[in-house]
């Protein structure tokens, strides 16, 4: 028989199929949303490191996360700059200070202190703003700062805000330029100042104390070997380090462990995905189970006609595959729409990527297949004799 029975079964009652597809689709959207939230957290947590220019990161062994980084001595960086194969070491100073809006409300802002002549950023659009930092009262404001920081248009800082003054760490500071970065999970806004104004705004951190050292290596350098050499130099004992020396991959991995593994965030969204999968499986089972029950006569007839169990199973499984396929496409579209809406409403970056699309598709097929297999149980009971 060349008839595509599975497809015809599905198409025989379009409204019913639409409903089933909607049910499975909602479960898929649920999975996409939970993964999207989790992904947004991951992206936000590591975003700032993506903007910094380094092959090796030098930081305090007390480092917890970007805004609670501990400090290291500038002279360590000077020493590392003298290592074989090290091209350059730049310092970055980081602190959270109070930002007072015009309405008098306080916000914590991430303050980055940089040497304008030696930019720690990868993004040259940021570097180009540095010539505006020649006054100690000048700062660059991150356009991705939360609207609670008080932009004129109440949405985000733009060129209209340049020239406005805000009280930062109890000192008047003027917005001299804009950049785009995103402050991460621990702060809602960021600003760049010169090292000189950083010292004035954060007097408790002395000139000799920096938060990070960004090591640049020449192209083709052996990152592992150099990091090992630096580590060896500063190792006091087998367990005790005076500084942390990390490659880019290590930095990202540790940051994700910290935010996803050690806060409730990872748990919440992983559990969300699991529950969404269960919901999806339950819906598919209901849909297919009902369908099998509804067509039991037809299946029994087919069996009586000599079609094997194998054939009938293939029909049901194929049906579940079609359902997976039909549900996936609209669900993906809807999820993209919801990502967009959520990004807008929640001020977080929800971005779809191919890996996620692929893995959710696989999950959908598996989920539908398993529920299809469960629904088959009913089919085995279709005894031709009972029918007549």
């Amino acid at each position, binding site marked *: 028989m060349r008839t595509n029975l599975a497809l015809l079964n599905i198409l025989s009652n379009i409204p019913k199929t639409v*409903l*089933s597809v*909607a*049910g499975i689709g*909602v*479960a898929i*959207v*649920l999975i996409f*949303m*939970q993964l999207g*939230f989790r992904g947004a957290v991951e992206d936000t947590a590591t975003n700032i490191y993506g903007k910094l220019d380094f092959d090796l990161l030098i930081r305090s062994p*007390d480092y*917890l996360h970007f805004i*609670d980084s501990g400090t290291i001595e500038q002279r360590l960086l000077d020493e590392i700059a003298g290592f074989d194969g090290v091209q350059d070491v730049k310092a970055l100073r980081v602190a959270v200070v*109070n930002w*007072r809006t015009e309405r008098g*409300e*306080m*916000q*914590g802002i991430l303050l980055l202190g940089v040497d304008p002549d030696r930019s720690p950023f990868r993004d040259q659009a940021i570097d180009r703003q540095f010539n505006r930092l020649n006054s100690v009262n000048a700062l660059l404001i991150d356009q991705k700062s*939360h609207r*609670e920081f008080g932009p004129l248009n109440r949405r985000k800082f733009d060129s209209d805000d340049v020239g406005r003054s805000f009280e930062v760490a109890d000192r008047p500071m003027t917005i001299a330029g804009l950049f785009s970065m995103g402050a991460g999970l621990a702060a*809602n806004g960021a600003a760049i100042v010169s090292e000189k104004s950083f010292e004035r705004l954060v007097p408790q951190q002395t000139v000799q104390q920096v938060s990070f050292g960004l090591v640049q290596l020449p192209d083709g350098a052996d990152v592992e070997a150099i990091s090992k050499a630096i580590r060896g130099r500063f190792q006091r004992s087998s367990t005790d380090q005076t500084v942390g020396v990390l490659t880019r991959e290590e930095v990202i991995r540790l940051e994700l462990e910290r935010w996803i593994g*050690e*806060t*409730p965030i990872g*748990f*919440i969204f992983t*559990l*969300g995905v699991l*529950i969404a999968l*269960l*919901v999806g499986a*339950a*819906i598919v*089972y*209901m*849909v297919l*189970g*009902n369908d099998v029950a509804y067509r039991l006569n037809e299946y029994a007839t087919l069996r009586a006609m000599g079609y094997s169990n194998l054939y009938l199973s293939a029909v049901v499984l194929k049906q579940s595959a079609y359902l997976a396929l039909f549900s996936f496409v609209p669900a993906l579209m809807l999820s993209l729409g*919801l990502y967009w809406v*959520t990004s807008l*409403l*929640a*001020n*977080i970056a929800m971005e779809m990527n191919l890996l996620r699309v692929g893995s959710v598709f696989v999950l959908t097929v598996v989920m539908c297949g398993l529920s299809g297999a469960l629904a088959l149980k009913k089919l085995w009971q279709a005894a031709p004799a009972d029918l007549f």
Partner: protein
Amino acid sequence: MKTPVPLAWKNLTHDRRRLAVAVGGIAFAVLLMFQQRGFNHALFDSTVEIVRELDCDLIMVNPARFALTNEIRFPGSWLEVAGSQSGVDSAEPLFMENLAARLRQDGKRARPIRVLGFNLDRPVLLDSRREILSQINELREPNTALIDRLSKSSYGFELAANAEFPQLGELNGNRIRLIGTFQSGRDFAHEGNLLMSAENFATYFRYRGPDPLSLVDLGLVKVGAGASTEQVLRSLRATLANNVAVMTRQQFIDKEIAFWARNTPIGVIFLIGTLMGFVVGVIICYQILANDIAEHLGEFATLKAMGYGNKFFFALVIRQAVYLGLLGFIPGLFFSWLLFEFNAGMTGLLMQMSIPRVVTILLATLSMCVVSGLLALRKLLAADPASLF
């Protein structure tokens, strides 16, 4: 027109297996909604739990302190000013450290912990379990503290109910003896809590200045018997002017939650999750009701032909929907409760299931089922008696 038999109930229950699947489906949607609301509440509740536990009527705080985690303090001398106001019974300091406090157990990494310091003679926590009071004399010893038993296990301390104390550790490089536990909880910003005397607090946080206790984090005001909280609040505000902000505990909690709600996407994320749970519920419930109607279409058409009107069918389907909602809600509530316990154990967050929250989800469940009932009803109303025969 009424039938002598409870038709809605019989329709639902005549096929027990299908009923079980239906109830399971609804319970799932209920679970999903509870879960999302639960996390949403937990993230907010947990950050203010410590405030709820404070034994006071009014709270004094530096006006610039926009959130508890923003460690801006005010001079303790204002407490004396407040304490001398008429109607004020006492104004006690609470000292807090988070960013500058590192707790370490031998061989483990030092981790940040929130440290609370208070005057042992004027306990500032409600201490409903009488745990702090019963250990207060031991807290008078130098280098002692109580540890929150909900603190993260990664600190390395044994915190189970049968754990033995004292346990030794290092706070900011100095020896500390944990002599017992109390209970508070973790949140996004804090992985655990220590509680100690103000004197001990001063020895661990010398960086706070020559007199580490001269700046306080919160001032806890108790209003004297017979005085009006409202009046004391007003007179304190007038006296302290812009130097120190004063608010009731509830105002403080509301402000703290408002800060987190405004500055984090928590609210939106879990609202979307809850709505999706609702949609899942509508779809599941609709499937069940629509199937049921399709199956009994012949019987319904017969009833129609016998003269039963639309109103009767309307009431029938809605009743069926409500029964389904109630039947699904009960196991949903039970499994959500289990899941809440599991979540609380895994995250240390406060997963609370209060009556208003349960009622909210119950109402959502019922409206979910009624919406699907109304959708399914269209099929039934279209059933033409004539086409039957």
